[in-house]
C-alpha cells in the first residue's frame, strides 16, 4: 500500500498542466492494455520529484520504470510515449500558432548531395542530423510535387528515391555504406514524424488519435519480414518452455505422503513434532506430435509456425514433427540434424515431399495418412498439436479420421493462424474439427501463443 497521496501541493511542484498530461498519458497506456493502477501513477509522480523532469532521457526512463512492468509493456510504452508527447507538443504548437521555419532560402536542393548526406548520417547513427535531413528530404519532395498525402506511401517513396537499402539487399557487397536496419528504421521514423508534422501544419488540425493497430503487435508473419523478428517472438516462448513443468513441482495440496521419509525425518525429533514428507511430483513430460501446414494459404504463418516448431524441438525431448500440404511427411530428423533455421526451412521445402500435384492442402487425406501410418504410436500420454487454417480447398475433410486420431491421443490442440472471425468462412472447415479437439486456439499474436503454452504446460484453459 502506498501511503503517499497526490495532494495538490505535491502536484504544484510540477509545472502546471504536466500532471494532467501525465494522467492522460496513463489513460492511453491503459487503453492499450497495460495495467496501470493508481499506485503506479502515484509511484510515477513520486519518482518524478526525485528526477529532474527537464532531462528527456531521465524523464522517459523514470516513467518506464514505474509504469511499464514487462518487456512487452515497455515496447508499447515506447510507442505510445513517442506518439503521445509528439501529439501533445504539436497540439500546443497549433494552439499557439507556432510553425517550423521553412527552408525557403535554400533554393534547389541537390538530390545527390542530399542522398550522400543521408547515407552518411544513417551510417554514423547521428540522430539529430537524421532529423534535419529528413526535413530536407521532405522539402525536396514537396517541391518535386511527388507527395501523395498519405504518410506511409510518402515514406516509402522518399526511401526509394534516396536509394536506402539494408545490408541484406545491398547489391554492392564491398560498399562502405551498407546501412544497418536499426538506423535505417530510425531515419524512417523521423521521416514519418516530420511528414505528420507537416500535415498537421498544413491542415491546422490534429489527426484523430487511433489506438495502436493490432498489426503493430501481431506476430511478424509476412515472409518478407525479417526472420530475426520471428525469432525474437519465439525466444521468449523458448525460455518459458525450457522451464516448462518445473513450476508445477512446488508444494501442492494434493501431493502424496512419503511414509518412509516421514518416519526417518521424525526420528530427529522423536516423533514430536511430526513433519510430513511428500513425494516429489514428477513433471509431466508429454510426448508431442506437431503437424504443421506449410501450404500457400498459410505461407505467411507457416514461416512462423516452423520457427515455433524449431523452438519446441529445443525444449522437448519427445517431439515428433510433421509437415503437410497434400500429404504428410515427418521432419523430426531434419530438426534434430540441423541447427540453423534457414537451412531447415529450405530442406523442408526441398525434401519434405509434401506437395503432390496441385499444391493445395488436403486435410482429409492428411488425416487418413496420419491415421494409418503414425497413429499407432499414439497413446494417452501423447499430445497432438495441429498448426493450420483448416482450409480444405473444398475437399472432403474426413472429420471422422481426425476424431479417431484425437481419441487415440491424450490431448489434441489446434492452432489456427486466422482470427476466430474468419473460421468457417469460405472453405475453412474448422467447425468439423473443433469438437474433436481439447482446445482450438486462434494464434496470431504472441499473447495467443503464450496462452497456448500455458495450456500445454499443464495450466488451465483460460476462459475468454
Amino acid at each position, binding site marked *: *500500500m*502506498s501511503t503517499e497521496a497526490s495532494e495538490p501541493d505535491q502536484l504544484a511542484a510540477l509545472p502546471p498542466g504536466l500532471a494532467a498530461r501525465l494522467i492522460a498519458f496513463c489513460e492511453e497506456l491503459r487503453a492499450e492494455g497495460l*495495467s496501470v*493502477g493508481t*499506485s*503506479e501513477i502515484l*509511484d510515477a509522480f*513520486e*519518482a518524478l520529484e*526525485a*528526477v529532474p523532469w527537464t532531462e528527456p*532521457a*531521465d524523464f522517459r*526512463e*523514470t516513467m*518506464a*520504470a*514505474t509504469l*511499464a*512492468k*514487462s*518487456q512487452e509493456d*515497455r515496447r508499447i510504452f515506447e510507442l505510445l510515449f513517442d506518439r503521445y508527447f509528439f501529439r501533445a507538443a504539436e497540439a500546443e504548437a497549433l494552439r499557439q500558432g507556432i510553425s517550423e521555419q521553412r527552408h525557403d532560402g535554400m533554393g534547389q536542393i541537390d538530390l545527390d548531395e542530399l542522398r550522400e548526406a543521408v547515407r552518411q548520417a544513417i551510417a554514423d547513427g547521428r540522430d539529430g542530423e537524421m532529423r534535419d535531413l529528413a526535413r530536407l528530404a521532405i522539402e525536396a519532395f514537396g517541391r518535386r510535387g511527388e507527395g501523395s498525402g498519405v504518410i506511409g506511401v510518402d515514406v516509402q517513396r522518399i526511401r526509394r528515391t534516396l536509394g536506402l537499402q539494408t545490408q541484406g539487399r545491398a547489391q554492392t557487397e564491398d560498399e562502405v555504406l551498407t546501412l544497418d536496419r536499426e538506423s535505417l528504421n530510425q531515419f524512417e521514423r523521423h521521416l514519418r514524424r516530420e511528414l505528420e508534422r507537416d500535415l498537421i501544419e498544413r491542415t491546422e488540425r490534429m489527426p484523430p488519435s487511433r489506438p495502436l493497430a493490432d498489426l503493430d503487435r501481431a506476430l511478424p508473419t509476412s515472409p518478407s519480414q525479417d526472420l530475426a523478428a520471428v*525469432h525474437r517472438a519465439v525466444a*521468449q516462448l523458448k*525460455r*518459458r518452455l*525450457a*522451464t516448462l513443468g*518445473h*513450476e508445477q*513441482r*512446488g*508444494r501442492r495440496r494434493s501431493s502424496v505422503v512419503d511414509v518412509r521419509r516421514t518416519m526417518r525425518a521424525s526420528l530427529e*525429533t522423536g516423533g*514430536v*513434532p511430526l513433519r510430513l514428507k511428500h513425494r516429489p511430483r514428477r513433471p509431466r513430460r508429454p510426448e508431442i506430435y506437431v503437424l504443421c501446414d506449410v501450404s500457400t494459404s498459410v505461407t505467411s504463418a507457416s514461416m512462423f509456425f516452423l520457427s515455433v516448431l524449431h523452438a519446441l524441438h*529445443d525444449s522437448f525431448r519427445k517431439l515428433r514433427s510433421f509437415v503437410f500440404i497434400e500429404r504428410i511427411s515427418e521432419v523430426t530428423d531434419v530438426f534434430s540434424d540441423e*541447427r*540453423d*533455421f534457414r537451412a531447415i526451412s529450405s530442406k523442408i521445402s526441398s525434401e519434405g515431399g509434401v506437395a503432390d500435384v496441385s499444391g493445395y492442402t488436403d486435410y482429409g487425406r492428411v488425416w487418413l495418412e496420419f491415421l494409418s501410418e503414425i497413429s499407432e504410436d499414439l497413446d494417452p500420454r501423447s499430445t497432438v498439436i495441429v498448426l493450420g487454417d483448416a482450409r480444405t480447398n473444398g475437399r472432403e475433410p474426413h472429420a471422422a479420421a481426425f476424431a479417431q486420431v484425437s481419441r487415440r491421443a491424450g490431448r489434441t490442440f489446434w492452432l489456427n493462424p486466422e482470427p476466430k472471425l474468419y473460421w468457417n468462412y469460405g472453405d475453412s472447415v474448422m467447425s468439423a474439427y473443433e469438437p474433436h479437439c481439447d482446445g482450438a486456439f486462434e494464434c496470431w499474436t504472441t499473447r495467443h501463443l503464450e496462452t497456448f503454452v500455458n495450456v500445454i504446460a499443464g495450466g488451465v484453459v483460460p476462459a475468454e
Partner: protein
Amino acid sequence: MGETAAPDSVADVRKALAVVGYLADESASLVSYLAQQLGKPVLVEGPAGVGKTELAKALSRATGRELIRLQCYEGLDEAKALYEWNYRKQLLRIQAGSQQMPATSSAPRPGAAGSGADEVAPDDSGSWTEVQEDIFGEEFLLTRPLLRAISTPTPVVLLIDEIDKTDQEFEAMLLEVLSDFQISIPELGVIEARTRPIVVLTSNNSRELTEALKRRCLYLWLDYPEVEREMEIVRLHSPELDEKLTRRLVEVVHMIRALDVKKPPSIAESIDWARALLLLGADDIDRDVFDKTMSIIVKHRSDLELVAERVGVKLDAEGKLDLGRAGPR
C-alpha cells in the same frame, strides 16, 4: 565500511557504481537512484548473464551496506526465507523445564492420587504460559534472510535472486515484506523494519510474475550491452588487454549473440575470454585462436558447431581481407 548518504543525482549513482567496478547504463543507474530515493524494491529482468545479480552486489559495495542474499528455488517456503522456530532448542527448553518442575510440584501429587489430573492442571497452567512465552521468544527464532534483512539495525541490500523459480504462493508471501517492510509472526506480533533495505529482485523471465508483485516494484530490463559499453566492462576487468583486441573480442561475442544459439555468451564469459586471451598472449583473434578458445564462450555442443561454422568462416574471410589490405609485408 561507513554507510554513505543517499545519492543526490543519477550521475552520482552511476559514478559510485563505476567506482566499485559496475558500469551501469542509463536506465540501470536511474532505477538504482530511484530505488534509493523512494525506498522501493527493484525488479530486474533480462537474459542470463547480463549482470542482474551483479547490480545488487555492486549496489551493496557502492553504498557500503551489507548484502543479504535469498537464492530462490522451487519449493522455497517461508521456513527457509522468513523465519523458523528452533524446535530442537524449544524441546530442550521444555525438557529442562520439566526436569526442574518435579522437584517443586511432585510433592502434592502422591497425596491427591485419585483426582490428580484435575488438580495438577491449574498449577501447571501457570508454568505452561510461562514456558510458552519463553519458548516463543526471540531466542528460539531462527532468522532467515528476509527477517534478517528487516531486523538488522544497519541498513542492508537485500537480493532476492531468481524470483521466477519460486511458486506464486511464495510471491504472495513476499508482498508484505516488499510493500510495508514488515513481517508478521503470529507468536511475536509484527516485526517492522528499523531501516529501509534496498531490495533487488532478479528474474530470468521464465514465467510471468504476478501483477501484485510487479505493482510494488520499479521495473528494470537489463539487456546485453552495446559494443562500446561491453568494451569498457571487459577493459575494466582486464586492462592489460590491447584495445584493438578488446574491440575485436566484443564484436565476435556480439556476432555470436546475434546467431540463434542455445546459450548466448554472457558478459562474464566475455571477461573470461579476455583473460584467457591474455594468458595465451594472443595478439589477434584469428581462426586458430578462435577455435582453440571458443569453448570459453560457447557451451553447447550444437552451438559449438554452429558458431565454428558461421563465425569461423567470417574470421577466415576477414583475415584474408586484412592481409590484402595490409599488402605484402
